[in-house]
């Protein structure tokens, strides 16, 4: 009888305890504010002991930001960089999602494209900046193309992984309910893959910020990368700080916006942040 008893015993996962310190008293928001204020304080203290060309103070940086805002440079830079990122990223999504779906679904397409995927994984967009400028000129095209490259790659890979992870059960259910190949692709595989697409899109957006700075530094005309680079010519280290801080905020804002929008739009597809 002990034999049957053992076979029947269900394994139950032990209840997990929250790790120590995850229940820190006080609200999360207070901690965040404290962390930021503390950071600025340390920055201020350091800047007191160092020459402004080496480390401008928070105050210098704010004044620099006001100066750049008043002559319109800052707004132009934000608009220029955001525009490039949105266009390149948007195009990358439009192309990357279908490629990922097709690669995931059709083995022969996967086999065909795999060597390129495996090769270009190791080529960061920054390595292609020179080529982009030679081929597409120093204008908008080369910068948008680099963002596009970053995005297509990440979105394709994530979408592909999503297609491969569609539960077999769900495909079987669709098949025995009468769905053919095309309908299954459209009504089961694509919706099941949405969370992966969103992950790819978010990663790509983050990487677009890396890429845009290198692209704008190489062919510096406008944009936040150019602002950071050109500040050097005027020995205005505080402008470098302004550029960096704005870049960080902008990236954060874009990511939050994307996260919020995709949670609102795709909650039922399993997108939950």
């Amino acid at each position, binding site marked *: 009888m002990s034999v049957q008893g053992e076979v029947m015993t269900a394994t139950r996962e032990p209840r997990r305890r929250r790790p120590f310190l995850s229940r820190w008293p006080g609200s999360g928001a207070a901690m965040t504010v404290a962390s930021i204020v503390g950071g600025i304080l340390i920055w201020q203290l350091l800047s007191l002991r160092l020459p402004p060309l080496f480390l401008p103070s928070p105050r210098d940086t704010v004044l620099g930001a006001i100066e750049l805002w008043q002559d319109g440079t800052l707004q132009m830079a934000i608009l220029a960089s955001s525009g490039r990122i949105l266009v390149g990223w948007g195009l990358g999504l439009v192309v990357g999602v279908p490629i990922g779906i097709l690669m995931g679904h059709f083995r022969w397409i996967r086999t065909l494209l795999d060597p390129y995927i495996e090769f270009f994984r190791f080529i960061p967009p920054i390595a292609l900046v020179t080529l982009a400028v030679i081929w597409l000129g120093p204008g908008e095209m080369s910068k948008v193309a680099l963002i596009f490259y970053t995005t297509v790659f990440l979105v394709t890979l994530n979408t592909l992984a999503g297609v491969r992870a569609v539960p077999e059960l769900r495909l*079987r259910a669709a098949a025995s309910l009468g769905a053919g190949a095309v309908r299954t692709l459209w009504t089961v595989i694509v919706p099941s893959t949405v969370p992966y697409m969103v992950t790819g899109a978010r990663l790509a957006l983050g990487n677009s910020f890396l890429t845009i700075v290198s692209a704008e530094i190489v062919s510096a005309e406008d944009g936040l990368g150019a602002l950071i680079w050109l500040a050097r010519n005027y020995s205005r280290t505080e402008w470098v700080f302004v550029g960096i801080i704005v870049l960080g905020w902008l990236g954060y804002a874009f990511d939050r916006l994307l996260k919020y929008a995709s949670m609102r739009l795709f909650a039922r597809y399993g997108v939950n942040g």
Partner: protein
Amino acid sequence: MTKYEGIRLDGVGVTLGGTEVVANVDLDIAPGEFVCLLGPSGCGKSTLLNVIAGFVPATGGVFVGGHEVKGPGVERGVVFQSAEALFPWLTVRQNVEYGPKIRGASRSECAEISERYLRLVGLFHASDKLPSELSGGMRQRVQIARVLANEPSVILMDEPFGALDAQTREVLQREVDRIWRATGATIVFVTHDISEAILLADRVVTMSVGPRARIKTVAKVDLEHPRDLMDPRALALHRMLRDDIGSEVNKSLRAQGLLTEEAA
């Protein structure tokens, strides 16, 4: 139901990943019959069900309603153990209407069909909920309604209540019995639960332990409905099936060196 269809397995064998999981299975299931498949874990019950569903290719002959099975088909509905088989982005109603929509039913026909079968499983009030908002038992009812909406002549169920608590399971067992009577479908029902099999089946089929599992015993359940598990004949059958499966379990444990002779 369009027409009742029987199932015939004729020397069926299945090889998965280089192992011959089941071999030489012969089984005849009459139209409208309710058959429960019992057997030790891992013997190949799901595999056999998947063969009838057309998910897994097999050697030998697999016939449903006289036609050879070559792949999945709408006349064979499948209820899976896991509710992962539901489409989580569709509401309960949309899940149920998935099949009718494919066969070209109009919007009003779809609404009528989903209402009929959601009422049948007692879930009409939850039509506009998402599967994630339902309990495990409710999700299984949605799966059943979704299958019924296609009016299949054969319903294949793989431990549909295996993940449910005892009370919910009892309620759903009664419901399956009722639905079977109402639709007249042929049902093949895989379970671990001997009582469940005795409660539901016309015949209980047990399998031997794999690899090369085959059919071991076919027992007719000659008890009137509604069945009483405490009936002496039910108890005798229960004991017989328990010993039958238990000996197979012991065989497999011994084969794995997990059971020594003294302990047996």
